[in-house]
């Protein structure tokens, strides 16, 4: 048997002989990937998301405020409950509610006035709605504010055009216009016609409503609705959140495996085994190269098992180029092996090296988007992560699995991963301390 093959087989035998480690090394990433996959959309991308908890404090008690609360309560994304100011503040502080909306006294009156005049009845600025929020839920806050805007517009306009307070306000405004000597005659006439038309519209609807012949207006509503379509690998192909999570966890645990291989080499250098290996007529490329090949094969094995599991249990499919998928996996496996060799080359003591390299691995995993997709990162961070190899591995695996991209889209990730392999490999070979100090 040639020495290179013997060295590779020995590494594989040692790896698979440690059955407990193999099982843990596969079961743990599968569990984590299943959990993250469920959180990030699950199978088919239609996993039910939990409602945002919102408390409402109605200090106004007007028709508008009641209408506003009814609008919010009717939204499927919100879980709306009435509360008091103190109780709401405490609930948000403790994280039991995401936000609390405070509708102040006279909000209905001022909002109705502001709808036509741009200011409240007293001439002050527009009335304010207080929003107390949990700062750890910034993303939900944006959604709540958006839904609140729509609900306020609808409830205020409804009341203004068809409600009692709306009619009173039209009458008041009409009188103000007609009695305003500073208003030019032409403007007075135009505004009078407009408000008179609204008054007539309201009276006609009142008569029709009394005879049951027509329905009242629902107020101003959004003049559009959205039709959502997830753009995946093809028509009728749903997004599968497990594809990303299994890729991410595979990357994390393979990096840890590469790290272990490096630490093992570091420990080997301090043992009699290293002396025996060095005493044999073996080249340095044989010793390090065999290590790289065996680590790559183990990486490939972990990837294969994880994606096979994801395929069978969660229906994750390689919707893009299979060759591209294999290429990304192979390039990442090689990169991991080179990373392990670099750890062994740069490490001084096992304990210190383990600490530093675990930290480096976790940072790479985090920035690469293996835990959470990189789209939730701020833009500067997304730009920065192009220098992280795991980012390319994740992009490559995402592209070849659920995005369904072609082989050409795998070329960039493969090339970058191979460049990192070369970089880590050169550092490993040049910095490796071959001599064992006696």
């Amino acid at each position, binding site marked *: *048997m*040639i*020495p290179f*093959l*013997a*060295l590779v087989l*020995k590494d594989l*035998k*040692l790896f698979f*002989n*440690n059955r407990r480690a193999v099982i843990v090394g596969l079961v743990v990433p599968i569990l984590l990937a299943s959990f993250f996959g469920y959180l990030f959309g699950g199978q088919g991308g239609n996993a039910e998301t939990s409602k945002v908890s919102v408390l409402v404090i109605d200090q106004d008690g007007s028709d508008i405020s009641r209408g506003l609360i009814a609008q919010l309560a009717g939204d499927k994304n919100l879980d709306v409950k009435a509360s008091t100011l103190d109780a709401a503040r405490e609930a948000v502080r403790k994280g039991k509610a995401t936000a609390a909306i405070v509708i102040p006294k006279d909000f209905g009156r001022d909002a109705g006035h502001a709808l036509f005049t741009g200011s409240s009845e007293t001439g002050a600025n527009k009335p304010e709605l207080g929003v107390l929020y949990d700062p750890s839920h910034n993303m939900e806050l944006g959604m709540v504010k958006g839904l609140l805007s729509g609900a306020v517009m609808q409830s205020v306009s409804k009341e203004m055009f068809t409600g009692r307070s709306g009619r009173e306000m039209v009458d008041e405004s009409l009188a103000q216009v007609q009695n305003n000597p500073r208003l030019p005659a032409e403007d007075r006439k135009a505004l009078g016609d407009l408000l008179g038309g609204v008054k007539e519209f309201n009276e006609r609807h009142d008569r029709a409503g009394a005879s049951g012949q027509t329905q009242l207006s629902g107020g101003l509503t959004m003049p559009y609705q959205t039709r959502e379509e997830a753009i995946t690998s093809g028509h009728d192909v749903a997004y599968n959140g497990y594809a990303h999570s299994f890729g991410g966890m595979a990357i994390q645990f393979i990096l840890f495996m590469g790290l272990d291989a490096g630490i093992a080499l570091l420990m080997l250098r301090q*043992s*009699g*085994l290293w*002396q*025996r*290996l*060095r*005493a*044999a*007529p*073996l*080249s*340095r490329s044989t010793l390090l190269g065999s290590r790289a090949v065996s680590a790559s094969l183990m990486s490939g094995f972990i990837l294969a098992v994880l994606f096979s599991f994801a395929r069978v249990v969660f229906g994750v499919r390689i919707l893009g180029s299979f060759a591209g998928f294999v290429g990304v996996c192979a390039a990442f496996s090689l990169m991991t092996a080179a990373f392990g060799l670099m750890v062994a080359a740069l490490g001084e003591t096992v304990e210190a090296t383990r600490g530093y390299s675990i930290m480096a691995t976790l940072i790479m995993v985090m920035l690469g988007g293996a835990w959470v997709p990189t789209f939730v990162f701020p833009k500067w961070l997304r730009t920065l992560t192009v220098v992280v190899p795991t980012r390319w591995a994740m992009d490559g695996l995402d592209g070849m699995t659920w995005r369904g991209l072609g082989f050409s889209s795998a070329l960039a990730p493969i090339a970058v991963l191979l460049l990192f392999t070369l970089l880590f490999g050169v550092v490993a070979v040049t910095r490796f301390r071959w*001599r*064992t*100090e*006696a």
Partner: protein
Amino acid sequence: MIHSSAMLEVNGLTKSYGKLMAVSGVSFRADYGETIGLLGPNGAGKTTTVSIIAGLLSPDSGEVLIEGKQVKRDTDPVKLKIGLVPQEMALYDQLTARDNLTFFAALYSLAGTTVKRAIGDALTLVGLSDRAGDKVGTFSGGMKRRLNLAAALLHDPQILLLDEPTVGVDPQSRNAIFENLETLKKRGKTLIYTTHYMEEAERLCDRIVIIDHGKLIANDTLQGLHKLLPVTNVIAVELDHADGFKPEPMLALPEVKSAELDQGTLRVGVHDLSRGAPGVLRWLAENGHSYNHVSSEQPSLETVFLTLTGRSLRDSR
């Protein structure tokens, strides 16, 4: 002048680690079939010397020749002539004894029936044939030491470098290893044996190289080393009545170099036993000192080391 036909020639080896001079100008040679003991306390430079011979370390200066050839590259065929038994256990606990040996044989490109025969022979030699299929992790320390030796024999090296191969083993296993080494010696192998156990060097070695603080102190046969001592023999006399006995007057006798009383036993150092012993016994009789047992002893290597370095070998560890 070192003869070029030696199995091993070590010429002027020097190696330092920073300011620490580990080996300084060490030279010696080993002929075919010879067993050389490298004796010295821990940190004397024995392991560094062996590591340089095995090609694990490069000397700062000097050279090592195996059958006249230097180890120049990692893959140098000269390495095939060397078998190394490291001081630390060099085995995979998770693999069986046979798998370990198969792997180490493959490092020397052994294949097919050659491997099977080599493994069988090695296991037979060290007495572990019946445990070939067991994982090394289940072995006792002594068994591991024997397997550690077997792993170095697979490629049938002509010279074996044994770096303290009996460290931490029980007397029974140590004896088994000695027997293995004596068998190898009979087969004509050249052995380089580092130890700080004098009795091991005395039992196994044809010549002893004493190293201390990286420097070669002596290089001779056991007999030759004894000749370096002021006394080469000791007459031990168990006195019937040692109370009040004063050994100092005996120093006036011709041939007597030392005389001391130790717990009822009088030890008298002489150069020539045949000439010194009669005079000592006659003096005891003439001065009324009866005795019940007389024997002769040779000074140990401990005494040699003490004489050459001024300190005890055991104290130096």
